[in-house]
């Protein structure tokens, strides 16, 4: 006899599947090096072929997000795919990507003039199969717009990242995860003076069918290193998944 909880979770999974969110089966992909953080996702696999939402209201957070995302891009792009970055006020400095193992010349930047073209370009790009990732700086996105993006990634299996710089305009959308990356004070290495490796607080505010939480993570020697002693998985109240 199934318990009520089992039935609910099974139904939830069914609904997600019908909506087009297919969690990858466990153990089929080798992960992207986020370590413990990946356990927050369904089946413990970082979902590719979906859209992630990154909240970065301040330039400092945008920089941290850029670093964190570049680390993820590095593993997404090692298949040889190109990556498209769409924005209006783009400040990303391409040479910095190389510090995160990303070939900056494999990124194509599309600088659009109008807000609505960002979404159009993103949808177009997401339809292009085989791209490693599509990143767009989006101020506002409605549910229908995010649904269009979701439809695009469903067929093309491209991973999308939405950079949201206005947290007041967050609304329900179809993104599979909502992140907020903030910089943390770095730890000097071995008592050396100066600044250590970049360290961030990665907050997974919302994750479809997974467990939100807060992690601390560092980028050192070309890979993510979770700061394990300070892990604090928070149990957020069950949110309405839009």
């Amino acid at each position, binding site marked *: 006899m199934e318990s009520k909880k089992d039935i609910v979770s099974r139904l939830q999974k069914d609904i997600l599947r019908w909506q087009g969110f297919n969690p990858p089966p466990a153990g089929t992909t080798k992960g992207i090096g986020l370590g413990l953080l990946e356990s927050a996702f369904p089946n413990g696999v970082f979902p590719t072929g979906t859209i992630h939402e990154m909240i970065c209201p301040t*330039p*400092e957070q*945008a*920089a*941290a997000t*850029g*670093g*964190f995302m*570049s680390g993820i891009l590095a593993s997404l*792009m090692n*298949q*040889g*795919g*190109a990556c498209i970055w769409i924005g209006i006020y783009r*400040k*990303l*400095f*391409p*040479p*910095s990507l*190389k*510090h*995160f193992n990303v*070939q*900056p*010349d494999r*990124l*194509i*930047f*599309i*600088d*659009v*003039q109008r807000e609505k*073209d960002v979404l*159009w*370009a993103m*949808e*177009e*790009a997401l*339809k*292009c*199969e*085989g*791209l490693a990732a599509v990143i767009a700086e989006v101020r506002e996105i409605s549910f*229908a717009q995010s*649904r*269009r993006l979701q439809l695009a990634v469903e067929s093309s299996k491209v991973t999308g990242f939405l950079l949201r710089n206005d947290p007041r305009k967050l609304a329900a959308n179809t993104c599979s995860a909502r992140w907020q990356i903030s*910089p*943390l*004070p*770095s730890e*000097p290495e071995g008592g050396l*003076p*100066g*600044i*250590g490796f*970049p*360290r*961030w607080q990665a907050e997974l505010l919302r994750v479809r069918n997974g467990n939100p939480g807060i992690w601390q993570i560092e*980028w050192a020697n070309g890979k993510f290193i979770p700061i394990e002693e300070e892990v604090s998985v928070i149990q957020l109240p069950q949110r309405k998944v839009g």
Partner: protein
Amino acid sequence: MQKRFISLWFRHLVTDWLTLRRPELKEVPFVLVAPIRNRIVVTAANALAEEQGISVGMAAADAKAIVPDLQALDEIPGQSAKLLKALGEWCIRYTPLISVDLPDGLILDVSGCAHLWDGERGYLKEIVTRLRSKGYDVRAAIADTIGTAWAISRYGKKTPVIKSGEQRNALLLLPPAALRLDSLILERLQKLGFYTISQFINLQRSALRRRFGDSFLLRLDQALGNEDEHVKLLRPIEPYSERLPCLEPIRTATGIEIAIKTLLEMLCKRLTAEGKGIRSAILKGYRVDGQIIQTVIGTNRPTFHTGHLFKLFELKISTLEPALGIELFTLDAIKIEDAEPEQEILWQAGGTGLQDSSLAELLDRIANKIGSNNIHRYLPQEHYWPERSVKLARSLKEKPGTSWRTNRPRPSLLLPKPERIEVTALIPDYPPMLFIYKGEKHQIAKADGPERIEREWWLDEGEHRDYYQVEDEAGRRYWLFRSGHYSGDHSKQWFIHGFFA
């Protein structure tokens, strides 16, 4: 644009065809006969037979009396219509608007086509010589109206090309039969002594109407171009549109979905066959209360993929208010483009790299919409000066000439222009203790630097920069620099240039 029409007259349509089929008939006079009102009547005669005085409508027995070795063959009913249709299809190479003019002609709407064949004379000559070389005895004329072209092709003795607006002069000397009139009217005209059109063309219209009726005036006006004439096209231009009447008014979203699916399937079937795709389509619902509700979709690439189009409409269903019910759905493709069938890729190694055609197509589309100067790709350049350390790639194929440097810290975000900050520095050439940027005070906890970057004197002039990588107490990391050497007045020397990850 002035309309131009060509009328083709096949003088011996069926007999020519028969001669082509049976070459032995080429040298003999022959007629086609058919029983009409219990009499065997000649319905067609070849050129040889006509030369010897046999005409259509003559009794077969009379014809045989005139030409003893005349061959009489049975007419195949409906053959001329079939032949004209086939010839019309063949003529589509010259113009898409072709109609059959029974019993022995074709009408070609050639407006705007003639210049492709060096003018109207060359165009006409091309058509006629091609048809004659096939074995059809054809006469043709080109004019502003179907009526004049018809008249000149059959009765014209001078030029077959009637210049625009000169129908009246061209018609003057022709017999009344050139106006495609009823045999009764022709007989009456004959009795009244009207042997050419010029004899009655200037008479009062009321008098003509009284004697010959409206149809006579209509034919005259059509020939002169005062009245439009519509013909039934061989290949009608059908709009990409589908209708779906409903037995009962549709009121539910599911019903609308089914209607959309049905309409899309009908439309896409045709589009697939023609290799076209929808760029934009409009769905209209005619409601019971007389209102029309509608919704429009657009696609970025022409598509005839029912599933995809349905997904687009599916999003709009919620905006359709059926109210008391929708009686009739129509789906019109407003914008149609050629959809190129894509070659299938057997397998894709890795991902879509920069050389991939699908990426190029994507960028083409984006460039079409937002301008190609908005698409950038960067390559390393051997300069330390941050603004010059990257250059724009000229094409997708361009490879980096040098490798990207990682031996120096570089920020994730670089401000397009360094912004001035207020700093407090205790010791010259040391990193500052605190700085104020945009009204916020940042207490510096850790710092690295300086990294001195000189301007390249051969490129520009100015002070060098001493870059510091600093981290404030909250862990936020910045890239600051002091412009030039530390001097007494350092209030205007400090800038922020970037943000580290």
